[in-house]
């Protein structure tokens, strides 16, 4: 019985690792720019489709295609930010405007993907998609293991960048107090563009990894963004630590619910937990009291 619970825990943590990376990108954007990027999951899908195209045409391993999707999404992020967001900065309704803007972006991406790849389910099937490892009595689906390891590696990399580089420190400073960052001479527009790029490159990595974990279709992003929003609100908007812990907690919780009650109840675990946490602690687990 003990092995069984351990098994569920491990499966939850593996999935949680990938969720953690997706949620970190989203919460980073919110922290630096106060932008709730509703298109985040749509951008994840773009990377998934690019990975799919590379696999189908060049049989490029989806884990290697990270090398393509991450810089590509980084560039797209910086470009989109500089093109669309600075003109909204002056608006007294900045937050509302960015919600509309990113909602619109999500619709555009969905439309373009449907047009290019049609609405049918796709998935990338490398050799390791259907294999698994066993350690003792614990069985590890290879694809989830790889995806999770890469996610944690990228999260550590993100932490190192934010903690130990000058630019990273400037990003953290901007997250904590945008006005103060400007006062000490941080060019917050450039830092925001960079952070948008960073968040998007994490979305790029997530897309490549999800492509061989779940089947996907262009409208799939609505499901994912709902889940991601639940994760970052739970962790505390703008807290990367919160997003990671929230993602691991919820993934494990939903794995247990799937096992005990049945898979139909798994998605609702997220929203139910979110509901309870918000009742008890409205700012999320690690969030500062919100000041928009």
């Amino acid at each position: 019985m003990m092995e069984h619970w351990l098994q569920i825990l491990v499966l939850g943590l593996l999935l949680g690792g990938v969720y953690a990376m997706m949620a970190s990108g989203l919460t980073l954007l919110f922290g630096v720019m106060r932008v709730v990027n509703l298109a985040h999951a749509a951008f994840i899908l773009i990377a998934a489709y690019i990975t799919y195209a590379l696999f189908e045409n060049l049989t490029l391993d989806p884990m290697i295609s990270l090398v393509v999707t991450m810089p590509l999404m980084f560039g797209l992020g910086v470009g989109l930010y500089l093109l669309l967001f600075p003109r909204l900065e002056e608006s007294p309704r900045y937050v509302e405007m960015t919600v509309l803007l990113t909602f619109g972006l999500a619709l555009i991406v969905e439309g373009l993907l449907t047009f290019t790849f049609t609405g049918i389910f796709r998935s990338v099937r490398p050799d390791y998609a259907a294999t698994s490892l066993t350690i003792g009595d614990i069985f590890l689906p290879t694809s989830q293991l790889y995806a999770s390891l890469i996610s944690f590696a990228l999260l550590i990399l993100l932490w190192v960048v934010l903690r130990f580089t000058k630019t990273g420190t400037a990003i953290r400073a901007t997250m904590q107090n945008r006005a103060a960052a400007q006062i000490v001479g941080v060019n917050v527009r450039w830092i925001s563009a960079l952070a948008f790029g960073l968040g998007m490159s994490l979305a790029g990595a997530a897309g490549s990894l999800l492509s061989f974990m779940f089947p996907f279709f262009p409208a799939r992003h609505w499901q994912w963004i709902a889940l991601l929003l639940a994760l970052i609100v739970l962790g505390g908007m703008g807290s990367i630590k919160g997003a990671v812990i929230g993602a691991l907690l919820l993934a494990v919780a939903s794995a247990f619910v799937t096992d005990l009650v049945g898979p139909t109840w798994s998605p609702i675990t997220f929203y139910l937990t979110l509901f309870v946490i918000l009742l008890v602690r409205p700012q999320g687990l690690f969030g500062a009291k919100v000041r928009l």
Partner: protein
Amino acid sequence: MALLEVEDVVAGYGAGPDILTGVTVSIEEGTSYCIVGPNGAGKSTLLRAIAGFLKPRAGQITLDGVVMNGSRPDQMLAAGVCFVPQDASLFPMMTVRENLTMGGYLIDDRALLRQRMDMVYETFPILAERRAQAAGTLSGGEQQMVTLGRALMVEPRLVMIDEPSLGLAPMIADQIFEKIRGFRDLGITVVLVEQNAVKGLEAVDWGIVLDLGSKEFEGPAEGILADPRIRELYLGKAVASKDKG
């Protein structure tokens, strides 16, 4: 030539009305100033416009004769103009040391950074004691010292301080004013905005009185408080006419 010239500057927020309706002030190097005036006179707005946080709608701001209109805050800072806003605006989750390091964000020379930090610790010994503590956990007065110390990191030519005594106990406020007076000995020109006109003017050489977005008059700090026009501005004409009986 004055260090900073503000000529007929008009400015306001968003699509709102003009808060500054044409201000002209001249800041000389080595002199300290306090801008006083009733609520809504545009004191903070003037500082924000100079610091590059607010683009003037008209008029001109020159530093050493170079036109600086529409410069970004980081460009103004690089030019030697440092702004310390009202609400001790620091990085709450970072330590005091990290906050000071962020103050030297524009400095790439690490040896120079360390040297400046030692200088700040000398000026504010309490910050040396608190260096490893998260800034958000400090008292109001200590937080204000962090923002002042952070301003010193860039060795600015001009420091503009908005309401340094806001929300502080009188004794703590006095300590802050004492430190600000010390800035002059470091060769830094100070422009202060202060709601508490008496305290503010005591700490500086020259007073500038603002009302309704433009300069009412200016003069030596000790003379300003005695000026009958100040009374009229703060207490209103009704009181003045009551005096006449």
